[in-house]
């Protein structure tokens, strides 16, 4: 068994573009759930609007890429407003229901044949990322070797841009969470009425958090569209939101770097057993009697077990504070 190659494949996922996408989703969710206590189960819907904003504006309407990016961000922010106005005055679970429904509705609308002329329905959209890749200093056709991890030039460029973005957003979250604004947000999470009694406009704070987190989710969608150079409606399925939630809980909700570390660990832990199992079934004398498809399913089982074990022994996530979690009881 080739342990080194297993580790190389796994570490490539640790810092790869997928980790960036889920890190962006999870940073947004962290603002919602970790700081403001809002349950957004439709984060992927915000990413969908971000991605399609880029795709539709550039492919369908022939606008420059930067217009698409701005439209994508604006649409994600608008979705937050539209969902927030009716639900933020209600209990947290209403927002959860509204967001999960909105994300599914959006996906179904964008993949429907009725919107084919704009969204490309199930075929999706592609061929819009050229202005992005043309900025790349790396050679698109070359594979670069990073400590034995192999990345194509375009992926490497996406990773440079993506991680820069993630770091900038971490800085933003750090500034916000260490400010009086963040203090009010946490107070809202703990007890809305107490915040109201002290003169804080709870609705406005929740709305600000929802819009900001949603726009960061939209940014995730934009990043994903540019990195994969295509948009497919069925990529934006509900499961993605829960992967992002998994990453957030794993890393530690309510911490600045928790969602980032969580997203990295999530992909690492997903790839590690996968790579091991693939090694174990390869060759003329396989260690395990499994087929390729079974390995694909098995890795989610193993990841599930890993996360479950983690939650038992470290319920606050990797970076969370145990004291805070215990105060819930």
């Amino acid at each position: 068994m080739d342990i080194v190659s297993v580790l190389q494949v796994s570490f490539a996922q640790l810092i790869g573009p997928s980790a960036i996408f889920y890190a962006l989703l999870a940073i947004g969710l962290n603002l919602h759930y970790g700081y403001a206590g809002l349950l957004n189960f439709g984060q992927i819907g915000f990413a969908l609007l971000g991605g399609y904003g880029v795709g539709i504006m550039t492919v369908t309407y022939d606008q420059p890429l930067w217009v698409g990016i701005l439209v994508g961000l604006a649409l994600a922010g608008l979705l937050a407003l539209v969902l927030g106005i009716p639900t933020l005055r209600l209990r947290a679970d209403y927002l959860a229901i509204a967001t999960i429904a909105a994300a599914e509705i959006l996906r179904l609308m964008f993949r429907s044949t009725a919107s084919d002329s704009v969204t490309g329905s199930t075929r999706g959209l592609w061929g819009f990322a050229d202005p992005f890749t043309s900025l790349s200093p790396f050679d698109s056709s070359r594979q670069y070797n990073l400590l034995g991890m192999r990345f194509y030039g375009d992926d490497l460029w996406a990773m440079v841009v993506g991680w820069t973005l993630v770091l900038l957003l971490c800085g933003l979250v750090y500034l916000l969470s260490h400010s009086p604004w963040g203090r009010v947000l946490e107070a809202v999470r703990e007890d809305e009425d107490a915040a109201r009694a002290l003169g804080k406009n709870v609705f406005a704070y929740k709305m600000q958090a929802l819009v900001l987190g949603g726009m960061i989710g939209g940014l995730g969608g934009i990043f994903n569209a540019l990195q994969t150079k295509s948009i497919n409606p069925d990529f934006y399925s509900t499961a993605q939101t829960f992967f992002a939630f998994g990453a957030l809980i794993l890393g530690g909700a309510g911490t600045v770097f928790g969602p980032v570390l969580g997203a990295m660990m999530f992909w690492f832990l997903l790839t590690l057993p996968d790579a091991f199992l693939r090694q174990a079934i390869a060759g003329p004398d396989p260690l395990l009697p499994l087929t390729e498809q079974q390995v694909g399913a098995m890795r989610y089982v193993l990841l599930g077990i890993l996360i479950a074990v983690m939650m038992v022994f470290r319920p606050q996530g990797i970076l969370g504070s145990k004291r805070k979690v215990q105060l819930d009881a």
Partner: protein
Amino acid sequence: MPDTTRPDPTPPRTVLGADARAALFAGVDRTPGAAKPDPILVVDDLCRTFGGLKAVDVSHLEIQRSCITGLIGPNGAGKTTLFNLLTGFDRPDTGTWAMDGVPLGRLHPHQVARRGIVRTFQLTKALSKLTVLDNVRLGARHQTGERMVGALLPWTWRHQEREITAHAYELLDRFGLAAKADDFAGSLSGGQRKLLEMARALMTEPTVVMLDEPMAGVNPALTQNLLGHIKTLRDDGTTVVFVEHDMDVIRDISDWVVVMAQGSVIAEAPPDALSSDPAVVDAYLGSHHDQALEFDDEGNPVGATAELADALADAEAQTLEAGGDLSDPDAASTDATATTLEKP
């Protein structure tokens, strides 16, 4: 923040000595809705119903400035609902109320708070995952860093934050919580949470403080401590309204007492005159509380006791006829019995 409402600058505080307060209330009628010499809060025709139940039905009420007004009444009298209405946490069916002549109806809770009325809650709301210090700092008003854009420019609010922190430590010192400043509020004991909630409320520099059962579940030593803090508040010129059940506490610190029962104000009086007010005694103990039960040699009730027993039997019969269940204490039967018994 989109909401740009700015409270008026804090009006000058009137500080009254004990004699001044006594003199002030000497001329006040001891009737529900009596006019006060210098009311800060005036409530008119306030009504709130839950289904068919009139939770609050106050035709007129005035709260005297810079004094401690105790609000008492049996459970379900509508005290907390009145608090919720006055602070914007609940909406009345009808009615107006005003602070210093400025109407407060139809305002959101945070707008009421910004106008200088701060409240605490019957079930203490410590923000458990914030530190004790952050709990108190949260209370400060006009924080530049509480705007989202301002938050990103730390140099714009750092100076203010230092002042707020210093003020917060002063308050924590005063309430004996300074040593706990860096602990999570969730780790405090019940009594310490009450103190914290009060310190946090004071951080808003309120004109009126409304305390909903500040002594509930607090040990006697801490009760004395809390009482001292409430008196200090008044002596600083703050108007205090508080809900309390303990008559000794009421007698100790209130300058004036408002008694509520079944949603209405049934009596107003200075604390030492309370026990002689028949309406208060009735509301707390029931009209028959002092009536001895009389029985003849065979154990049958006689006199007034016999009438009472008949009334009970009638009510029971009525309930059974109406298909009620006597074993269910919440059913209409109890109401029927009660109403029958209330008749003198």
